């Protein structure tokens, strides 16, 4: 590589790095100054937010920065002493510059399609995390005041995951931990006193069942053997004793008292519930067990069965009490969207937690219906690709014909729905834009069409290519050949030219918008159907070809004079 090419590369790379560092530093200072002192309480989050915003801002100004680098290099830097040592052809400048331009365009492409949207998302995530931290601390203070130490610890787990150095949080955590230890100690002492005689090992369910069987208390035996059987389903001995107890209990039917009749009913209902549980009819099992437990709150096995059923149901359903646990978290409010069934859904607030979402105050309205018929629900949860809504406190199976009313199937994941009015356009990567644009539009998002968006982005890339080459060539033609410019002029140039370049960049993109706008008239009056993206690329390519020719037709001083002794 000859010295001119090496110097060209050096100047362009150093200018690029200097410009980028300058941009980041400027944005960092700007955002640091703009951020309110109290807006983000966690220091590490504040710094991360400022830096992310600075990086995102710098990347979005990368296209005009690259154009500016070409202007300043060709009009000024390439006239400095390293380029005056020996004669050279313009090609020695053009080839490395061209290669660098392509490299910069690749970086800008990645930045426009991937980095900037991801940074936008990161910025939003940091802001949301900060809100969670603030809400967690406030909630923990409230709970601590009420003496609810267990929930204080749970809440502070959220906070300490974000900021483990906060003194107030640490103090609250230690206090809650001490409080909880004291409470547990008192409970243990209490249990020790009340259960002093039973220090020896408790017999197993089977042993207790057998004991009752031997005493001919068959109903009590059944009570224990059911538990033993549910724990050891393959144990033949338990199975056999259980069946024998059931038969014996049945044989006693003729002699039962009123109390025993009730016990018999309990056993029958429990039997039905167990069959429902075995056959996977969890809603029926839940209905029976929860009603039995209300009548017999002291029967431990009912609580255990109910817990088993609830565990199964939680896979397909939810309890509204679950929503209460997370209600203190910062919500997204006032969401409106259309779902796959054609309902317009409005939601008062949504709380994202982990990979799920909790919905509060849901109203569904069928847009195409003549009558204003609405479905309202207090609670909703994102489960298995749909939002399940309900008003009832417990688990209740939705009738098949009403399934459409109580299951919302949105076109997109709720994470996108939350951002409807919050600039989602800037936070979608190329892949998401291509795969989700249509679904987002069908959800009612005012989002640019896929091809229009792509054409606009392509316009940015072409603007960098065309303006860099044109202004680079123009700057070379109008370069300072007589003397080094005065300091005052250099300062004015350094201050004004970035704005001029930015203005030209905006004007080119405005022109590209005009091309996109003209598409509708072009296809109506000139051609038939043609893809908008192809149309935009074609026009920009023609301009690009002319600009490339203009750039390549520039000459070095030696070429202009006609001397060719540089080879």
């Amino acid at each position, binding site marked *: 590589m000859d010295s001119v090419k090496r110097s060209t590369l050096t100047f362009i790379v150093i200018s690029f790095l200097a410009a980028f560092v300058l941009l980041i530093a400027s944005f960092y200072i700007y955002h640091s100054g703009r951020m309110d002192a109290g807006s983000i309480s966690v220091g590490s989050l504040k710094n991360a937010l400022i830096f992310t915003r600075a990086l995102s801002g710098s990347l979005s100004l990368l296209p005009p920065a690259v154009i500016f680098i070409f*202007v300043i290099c060709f*009009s*000024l830097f390439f*006239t*400095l*002493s390293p380029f*005056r040592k020996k004669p050279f052809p313009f090609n020695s400048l053009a080839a490395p510059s061209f290669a660098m331009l392509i490299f910069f365009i690749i970086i800008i492409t990645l930045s426009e399609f991937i980095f900037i949207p991801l940074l936008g998302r990161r910025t939003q995530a940091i802001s949301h995390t900060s809100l969670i931290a603030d809400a967690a601390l406030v909630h923990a203070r409230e709970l601590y005041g009420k003496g609810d130490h267990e929930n204080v610890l749970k809440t502070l787990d959220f906070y300490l995951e974000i900021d483990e150095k906060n003194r107030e949080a640490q103090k609250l955590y230690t206090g809650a931990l001490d409080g909880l230890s004291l409470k547990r100690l008192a409970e243990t002492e209490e249990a020790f006193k009340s259960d002093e005689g039973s220090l020896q090992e408790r017999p197993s369910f089977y042993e207790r069942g057998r004991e009752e069987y031997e005493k001919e208390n068959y109903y009590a035996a059944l009570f224990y053997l059911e538990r033993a059987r549910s724990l050891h389903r393959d144990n033949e001995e338990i199975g056999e004793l259980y069946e024998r107890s059931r038969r014996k209990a049945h044989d006693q039917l003729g002699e039962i008292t009123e109390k025993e009749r009730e016990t018999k009913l309990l056993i029958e209902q429990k039997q039905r519930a167990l069959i429902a549980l075995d056959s996977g009819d969890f809603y029926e099992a839940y209905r029976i067990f929860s009603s039995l437990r209300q009548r017999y709150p002291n029967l431990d096995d009912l609580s255990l069965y109910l817990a088993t059923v609830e565990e199964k149901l939680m896979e397909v359903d939810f309890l509204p009490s679950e929503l209460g646990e997370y209600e203190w978290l910062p919500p997204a*409010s*006032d969401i*409106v*969207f259309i779902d796959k069934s054609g309902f*317009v859904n*409005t*939601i*008062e607030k949504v709380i994202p937690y982990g990979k799920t979402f909790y919905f509060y*105050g849901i*109203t569904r*309205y069928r*847009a195409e219906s*003549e009558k*204003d018929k609405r479905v309202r629900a207090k609670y909703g949860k994102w489960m298995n690709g749909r939002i399940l809504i309900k008003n009832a406190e417990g688990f209740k199976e939705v009738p098949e014909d009403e399934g459409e009313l109580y299951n919302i199937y949105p076109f997109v994941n709720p994470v996108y729905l939350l951002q*409807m*009015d919050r600039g989602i356009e800037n936070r979608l990567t190329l892949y998401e834009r291509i795969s989700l644009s249509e679904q987002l*539009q069908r959800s*009612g*998002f*005012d*989002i640019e069409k896929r091809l229009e968006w792509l054409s606009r982005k392509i316009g940015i890339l072409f603007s960098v290519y065309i303006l860099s080459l044109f202004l680079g060539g*123009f*700057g070379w033609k*109008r*370069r*300072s*050949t*007589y*003397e*080094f*410019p005065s300091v005052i*002029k250099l300062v*004015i*140039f350094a201050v*004004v*030219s970035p*704005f*001029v370049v930015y*203005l030209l960049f*905006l*004007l080119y993109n*405005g*022109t590209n*918008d*005009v091309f996109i*706008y003209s598409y509708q*008239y072009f296809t109506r009056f000139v051609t038939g159907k043609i893809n908008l993206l192809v149309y935009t690329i074609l026009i920009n390519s023609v301009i690009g070809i002319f600009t490339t020719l203009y750039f390549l037709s520039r000459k070095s*001083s030696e070429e202009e004079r006609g001397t060719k002794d540089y080879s």
Partner: protein
Amino acid sequence: MKFIIRTTLRIIILTLLFTVPIGLFITALMLAGRDVPLWNIGIRNILIVSKNLLVPIVSASYLFSTLFAVALVDRMKIRSIVLLHIPPLVAGALIAAVLAFTGLIDIFDTSGAIDRNTAVGYRTFLKKDVFNRADGSMIRVSGDVPARSSLLLYEKGSNTLIPMNNISLSKSVKIDRAKRLLLISYEGETIRYSKGFPFSVFVKKSPLTSGRLVGFYTKHMRLLLRTVRSQYINLTGRDRMLFGGFLFLSVLLFSISLTNAMNARGWRLFGIVAVFLILFLLPLFYRAIFRIIDTAGGNPEFLGRYSYLFPAITAGVCGIIIDILAKVFGPGRAPSEYGKF
């Protein structure tokens, strides 16, 4: 003579070339100022607005072309600075003559340029089948038959959804741009309107037509035009022509002198970059002159009944001073190519 003819021709050609982009820019800026999204109105409307703004567009294009042409002139080849002012005057006179013969509108009468004959309706602001964002509300228009469309109004905060079915959009949805209201009439007497409906939310934000710097510039431009217009209206007959003519000449004199002074010896790109700076500073400079004169107690009386020419003369004198300074401190001859490097 050859220099004068060549430069005049260059200015006229550049004026014609720049008229389209500058026209689009000014039209977009004016429409954005009135919260009308350029991309949502038909090309016919854009052309109507551009035609109504033709004089300001041609003037801006002429001024830009003049400065651009002056910046492109090799300063080493200028024999006399006075000579440099002649081609812009000739080109300006020719363009003004063409405008005058075509009987175009008064230069300062752009007040109704957008509203006149511009069909702006609900379609300009409401995109179909999507929830159009508006402060405090979201509006969705749907339906294939305009006479039987559906409109959904979602009011945030109260989480209220107001459906309006089978309505004629052209009859039910009215835009009151002056009061910045969107009026929706439904079921006879019910009229809903947004409180201070912010049209700006419908306008696609562009750094070209919004932003602090653009706001600062357009504000001062507007205030300057208001000042000039009020002084122009207070005059009558020949005085109006004199006022306009002097002002026009002073703008040329000052800006050309400054462009020439900024035109670097061999570094002509600096001269071109400086054109943008001069164009940015020009309205601020004139506004400063008018404000200083106003603060000092108005136009002096030594000019008699022609005291209204004082601001223009002041700007012109500034231009002459710049010319003299450029002549005294400017380059005498071209130094050798590798002089100071």
